[in-house]
């Protein structure tokens, strides 16, 4: 199974990796339990920064598409096929859209929403709840 990334694509590199690994799981090219290359190996082969691949792996692990097993390496999660269909971006878009709509209805202005949203994000980042 080959990963192909386009460095001039408008889609971020980590997102290309996430999408392609999910597609490979859905198409059955990689199966639950299969091992994945290390972050260093994949970054070296694709001539990317280790952090880019690490971010993609973190997102896939969050979505339970892959699982890290310490020194043994990274593997495809047993429920990866079901979990690969879950689109977090879609959920975020929907939930934030609903919230913004509700806030506007209650009289909040766009700038107030933006300020509070930025402050909340900052507070979460300070608590270390970021990716």
């Amino acid at each position, binding site marked *: *199974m*080959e*990963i*192909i*990334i*386009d*460095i*001039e*694509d408008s889609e971020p590199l980590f997102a290309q990796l996430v999408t392609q*690994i999910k597609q*490979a799981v859905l198409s059955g090219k*990689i199966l639950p339990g299969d*091992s*994945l*290359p*290390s972050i*260093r*190996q*994949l970054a*070296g*082969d*694709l*001539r*990317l920064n280790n952090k880019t691949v690490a971010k993609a792996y973190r997102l896939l692990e969050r979505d339970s598409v892959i699982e890290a097993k310490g020194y043994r*390496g990274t593997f495809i999660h047993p429920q990866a096929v079901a979990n690969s269909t879950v689109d977090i971006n879609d959920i975020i878009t929907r939930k934030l859209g609903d919230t913004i709509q509700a806030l506007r209805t209650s009289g909040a202005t766009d700038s107030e929403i933006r300020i509070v949203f930025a402050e909340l994000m900052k507070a979460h980042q300070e608590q270390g709840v970021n990716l």
Partner: protein
Amino acid sequence: MTGHTLFNLAFLSQIILISALLPRTLYKRACHLLKTYPAAEYPRLYPKGPGSYERGLRRFVSLNAAIFLVGIFFWVTFNLDATRDDYAGVAWGVFMLQSVPFVLLEVFTFRTWKLMREADARTTRKAELRPRRLTDAFSYLQMGLVASVFIAFCLFVNHINQFGYPWFGGWLNVIIIGMGNLLLAGIVLWNLFGRKRDPYMEERDRLRRIRLMARQFVLVSVAVTVYATVTITLQAYELREFKQLAMTLYAQLLALGCYFTIYADQGINFEVYRAEPVSN
């Protein structure tokens, strides 16, 4: 036939093999590659242009010719000087000198890969979604062979130590060979797990080259251990004239082994270096 005469012949064979025959074979192969894969069709193979390769090739031939003459000079001196009986140092020195063009060839290859990476204008990059493992480079048989030969050497040194063998009782050899093994294994692992050097090389070719490199490592490790064992034995039995013979035979075996593992590699897919078709 005395050890002196045998060494005489073996030393001459070392000079001819490493500074004439192997460079000639490599030169012919390089010329064949330049002809079969011309820069017009395979521009990725020549990031500095074909002229630089032809110049480098001419330098490689000239350097080997010069070293050949130096070797012949020492060989003639050895034949004229009947008073000296220990020429192992000279044969070793000549071997070191003979290695220089091959080391420079490796440096040239690394530089070429660097230039290839810089010149690579493709926006897409590919990678296999499969982890590389130690067993991709070394088979269990190879690992077992290196380990058992090294352990056997340690036991041999321990045995010979009981008879008061000089030079730290041979333990210095154990340390040097052990460190050499670690260094060679490190180079193979660096190639296996490190960054991709040649941006165009296919994963299949890359793994095959790493396996050839590992085979070369096994050969060097076993050869150096056997050579050290033979040297210690000859020293212990005071057969010094055969020691220099062992040295020059070892050098030739090493050169041939390296040639047949890496340089004689014929399976490279050169199509990856072909110019991309111009899209309308």
